């Protein structure tokens, strides 16, 4: 019985420890991947994605109305949308790309009208806490997360390289396509084409370029988990006339991590089922054999077969519950202790997982004891007369 209890305890310990670290590791990976920035692009159908960071410079356009369709779609797992329209302009005698962007406040309001959950983050997505929308974070968030909360008609943001080349700083005035703009902020360097760009309000750029209500691309910051779960296909359903694409490596990484961790958890679950089940079945079988005369005596004294069955199953239940609870406790402690060194994540106990694993241990112990218990219940009570 001690071996059996130990097998259950170790199985549950391993399951809870690995699964707890896995859950926190998955969350950390999701957070890290989300922090990479936009990961879904909505492009005109004829455009082929050659350069992810210059995906909006092809010259073909989409109706701006697509942004509204997306915000009202109610799709879950979209952190942010960034419609973009690029036109050529001259700044301080040099050619620059003027990119029209839409501040988040404008389409977030539309999402609220529709009661849509487009900016809702389902469980398991990266941390919304990474997306503060205070004005002070504007340049940093635009560079990293394609978010700017507010942008007035004649305000502009300038990339780090463009600002350096033109010798501009925050608060300076510049002239673009014949109109004056005030530089709201100089964006931090990102190492992408954005460093050489100037950003202004989308509607201002549309008017100055006389392009109408169109955009070249809509960048979407989607929760990686939701992308893996088919967000791209859902966006394509909302926008059937557009081409919706994603960075496959990012999604594949998320999927691979999830798959590896999931497989590992399944392996430990299988281990618990196999080792715990076999140990319990063996121990209970041995216990029934050892106690044949005791069982026979109980039956001679008036115990019914169903009572004998319940006695042994009750014993298995106590064994599973005790081993399961102790294993869940030990596994949680191990996960909290080993998480930072093994997976570089801070781990906290997961009570629901601990309870679930204990439940599995109880079910395994009871199921594994069914046959030995049934055998005990079918014992010939005459064994009570046998001499030892």
């Amino acid at each position: 019985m001690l071996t059996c209890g130990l097998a259950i305890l170790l199985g549950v310990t391993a399951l809870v420890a690995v699964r707890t670290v896995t859950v926190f590791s998955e969350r950390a990976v999701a957070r890290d991947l989300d922090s990479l920035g936009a990961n879904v692009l909505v492009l005109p159908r004829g455009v082929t994605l050659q350069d992810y960071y210059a995906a909006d410079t092809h010259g073909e356009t989409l109706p701006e109305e697509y942004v509204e369709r997306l915000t009202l779609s109610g799709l879950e797992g979209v952190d942010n949308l960034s419609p973009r329209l690029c036109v050529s302009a001259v700044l301080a005698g040099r050619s620059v790309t003027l990119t029209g962007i839409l501040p988040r406040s404008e389409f977030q309001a539309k999402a609220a009208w529709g009661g849509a959950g487009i900016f809702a983050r389902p469980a398991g997505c990266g941390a919304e806490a990474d997306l503060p929308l205070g004005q002070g974070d504007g340049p940093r968030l635009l560079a990293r997360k394609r978010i700017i909360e507010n942008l007035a008609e004649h305000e502009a943001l300038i990339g780090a390289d463009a600002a350096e080349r033109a010798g501009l700083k925050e608060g300076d005035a510049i002239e673009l396509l014949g109109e004056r703009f005030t530089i709201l902020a100089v964006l931090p360097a990102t190492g992408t084409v954005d460093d050489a760009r100037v950003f202004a309000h989308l509607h201002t750029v549309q008017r100055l370029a006389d392009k109408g209500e169109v955009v070249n691309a809509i960048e979407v910051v989607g929760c990686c988990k939701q992308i893996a779960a088919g967000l791209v296909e859902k966006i394509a359903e909302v926008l059937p006339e557009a081409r919706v694409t994603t960075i496959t490596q990012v999604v594949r990484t998320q999927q691979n991590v999830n798959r590896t961790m999931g497989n590992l958890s399944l392996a430990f679950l299988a281990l618990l089922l196999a080792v715990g089940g076999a140990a319990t079945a063996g121990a209970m079988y041995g216990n029934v054999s050892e106690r044949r005369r005791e069982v026979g005596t109980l039956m001679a004294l008036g115990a019914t077969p169903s009572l004998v069955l319940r006695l042994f199953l009750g014993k298995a239940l106590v064994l599973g519950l005790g081993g399961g609870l102790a294993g869940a406790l030990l596994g949680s402690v191990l996960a909290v202790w080993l998480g930072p060194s093994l997976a570089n994540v801070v781990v906290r106990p997961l009570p629901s997982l601990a309870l679930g694993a204990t439940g599995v241990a109880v079910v395994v112990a009871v199921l594994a004891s069914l046959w030995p218990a049934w055998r005990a219940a079918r014992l010939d009570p005459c064994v009570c007369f046998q001499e030892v």
Partner: protein
Amino acid sequence: MPRLDNVRKSYARRGRTVEALRPTTLDIGAGEFVAMVGPSGSGKTTLLSIVGGMLAPDSGTVWLDGQSLYDLPLGERTRLRRQRIGFVFQSFNLVSYLTAVENVQVPLYLAGAAPRQQRRRAVHLLERLSLGERLGHRPAELSVGQQQRVALARTLANDPALILADEPTGNLDPDMREQVLGLLEEFRREGRTVVMVTHDPAAAARADRVLPLIAGEIRAAA
């Protein structure tokens, strides 16, 4: 009380049929003390198991208090055994991890008595058998004679009308044997029927009737 009508029982052993009990008819009166004697393998324990409602015969009818024992459903037969029959075993068959009082409580628990009532009755019986000082002792902490007296107390727990004793003196020294036989006689005087299987002619001589059982057959009543 028990009555056997043409009861027969055989076993298959390594492809051969062993006649454990040849067709037997037997009537045991209420309050009678009957001893069954015979060599090993003569069918004594088979007969005791059949009378105790634990081993169905191949043919014939076993009656207890006017009811055909093996025509009853299993649950009903178990209930009847619990209420009407008490067993005494050669090796006492006490549960090793239970105390003396808990061992005596077992039949009362199985009969559904309330815990307080179980305890009161068990203590009373153990005191009656001079074991009042040993209530909390486990079997390993008791002498052989004390263990057999705990087993006898357990036998009386549900106040059975029929006591089936399988070699009750087999493991006892002469003093203890005398004590146990005295108790069985006392039970008989209380109006209980006692059926005892024994090898011991001296023990059998204490019975009202001795039934020699040879090769599964009751030869002649002594």
